[in-house]
């Protein structure tokens, strides 16, 4: 692909947020009829800001991000509107979406070990992303790659660029994933549970790294997690989801200091606190969780 390839989705519509999602629904056909995994989610992400999407398993938070990217598995259908800088993404052909993916919207996934191909060096995997969108020589791509690795603080980057994924620790692999996502300078980064599989000290480092990179590049971010405490630290705005439905949305401060929805309140009550003394009262309120089936 030549570097001057026309990007039809490049010129932002004035006044538009970076990402606007309206009534996004995701449906999967199954043998027993259609199943909605996301029902009319609406939210927006501003340039340089972070939207945290928080929910438990089955809440539809991951499916929402895959729908935005056009990466739904196995026959999933997306309805509603997703506008990137004012340009509609839903309904675009896979070919058009391929130009968006990686270049305008990049994604970082939960398990960095299985998310990288074990048969190829990390350098190659970053280079190919770069070259797929910008073209150019291998040499140029390699230089970009090494620089990207240095930016995420991989020591000895010029040598380690030729190492394989299994030769890195979990935290370093996630840095590599972040480097891979950011090397094309996307407008939006979607991070799907990026620190869930990592130790807590490593998580802290990765979260610091993400916020620093975000400040430097002005990238917008969607941060998906089940961890309320993490969301409270990284997100400017928060969307709470449950079983496919959006439950509550607001700024982080609003959600955490004045939660309105019963589910949000219950989640916050149930969260174990590290600074909360062992008390006699039960940790779980009666409104969440399962009862006797």
């Amino acid at each position, binding site marked *: 692909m030549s570097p001057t390839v026309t990007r039809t989705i490049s010129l932002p519509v004035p006044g538009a947020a970076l990402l606007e999602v309206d009534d996004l629904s995701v449906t999967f056909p199954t043998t027993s009829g259609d199943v909605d995994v996301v029902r009319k989610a609406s939210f927006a992400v501003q340039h340089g800001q972070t939207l945290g999407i928080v929910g*438990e398993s089955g809440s539809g938070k991951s499916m929402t991000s895959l729908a935005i990217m056009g990466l739904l598995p196995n026959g999933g259908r997306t309805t509603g509107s997703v506008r990137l800088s004012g340009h509609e993404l839903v309904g675009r052909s896979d070919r058009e979406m391929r130009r968006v993916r990686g270049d305008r919207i990049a994604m970082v996934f939960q398990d960095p070990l299985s998310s990288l191909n074990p048969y190829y060096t990390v350098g190659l995997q970053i280079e190919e992303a770069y070259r797929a969108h910008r073209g150019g020589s291998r040499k140029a791509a390699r230089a970009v790659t090494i620089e990207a690795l240095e930016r995420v603080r991989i020591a000895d980057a010029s040598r380690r660029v030729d190492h394989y994924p299994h030769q890195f620790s979990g935290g370093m692999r996630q840095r590599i994933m972040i480097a891979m996502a950011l090397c094309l300078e996307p407008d939006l980064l979607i991070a799907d549970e990026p620190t869930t599989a990592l*130790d807590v000290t*490593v998580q802290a480092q990765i979260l610091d790294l993400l916020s620093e990179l975000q400040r430097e590049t002005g990238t917008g971010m969607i941060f998906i997690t089940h961890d309320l405490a993490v969301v409270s630290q990284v997100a400017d705005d928060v*969307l709470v989801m449950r079983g496919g439905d959006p439950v509550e949305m607001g700024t982080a401060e609003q959600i955490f*200091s004045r939660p309105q929805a019963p589910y949000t309140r*219950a989640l916050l009550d149930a969260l174990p606190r590290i600074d*909360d003394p062992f008390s006699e009262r039960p940790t779980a309120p009666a409104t969440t969780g*399962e009862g*006797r*089936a």
Partner: protein
Amino acid sequence: MNDAPVLLQATGLTKDFTTRGDGVFRARTTRFRAVDEVGFAVRAGETLGIVGESGSGKSTTARMIAKLIEPTAGTITFDGEDVTTARGPALAAFRTKVQVVFQDPFSSLNPRHTVERIVSAPLDYQGITPKQGKRALVRDLLDRVGLNPDHLQRYPRQFSGGQAQRIGIARALAVSPKLVICDEAVSALDVSVQARIIDLLRDLQAERGLSYLFIAHDLAVVRQIAHDVAVMHRGKVVEQGDREAIFDHPQEEYTKTLLAAVPTIDPSWEAARATMLEQERTHGSTAGRTEA
């Protein structure tokens, strides 16, 4: 809290894993020390939480205590007896007193066995016949852990994660053990489910005087359930003490780093929320607001 008698004492526990290494005929071996001279005590009716990150050796330690793997060195004393090398009848006796709840219920419960069979299995293996009969006991246990006793004939896959974990707990309780080892027992569960399981475990402890050896990587969870805490790092116990000491006054650098790394919600937000809830309680709630 420190006057409860010691139920289980571990001293100098060490575990080495050897791998056949290089050399023409694999003569040179490498030895990896997963657990290095670890010692701690679990008191009767109380919980010792062992926290650590991956590679800290906490799971290996738990397995040694559960006698699922052999220690390379060290001693384990339970109820006054040295059980480090227990075999045969002594080991069987140990197993009636010490049970385990594992992390992932869907891989630790045999998917082809019914709930009844799963929960009553320890009774069969130990050759224990309860007075009221096996089935009645199983029904009792299911009821106690919050499951419907009529679901005896169901299979694990028909339950949610939290419910399946309750089955695992019921199974652990079947032989009325004194010590239950919880190896990351709530780590795979959603937050709200986690909270209910922690409550269940605490209630059971209060009722039955159970002791827990609670292995976890999540410090906040450990805070909710442990009376004493041991922090492990690279095979060693870096610091241990009672809950307040560890969480409020950590001494070691690693412990401080670990605690500092745990994400927390802004205290002013927490305070605001508490105030709001308090106001609603006293002035009546502002009718369940906007579900977005």
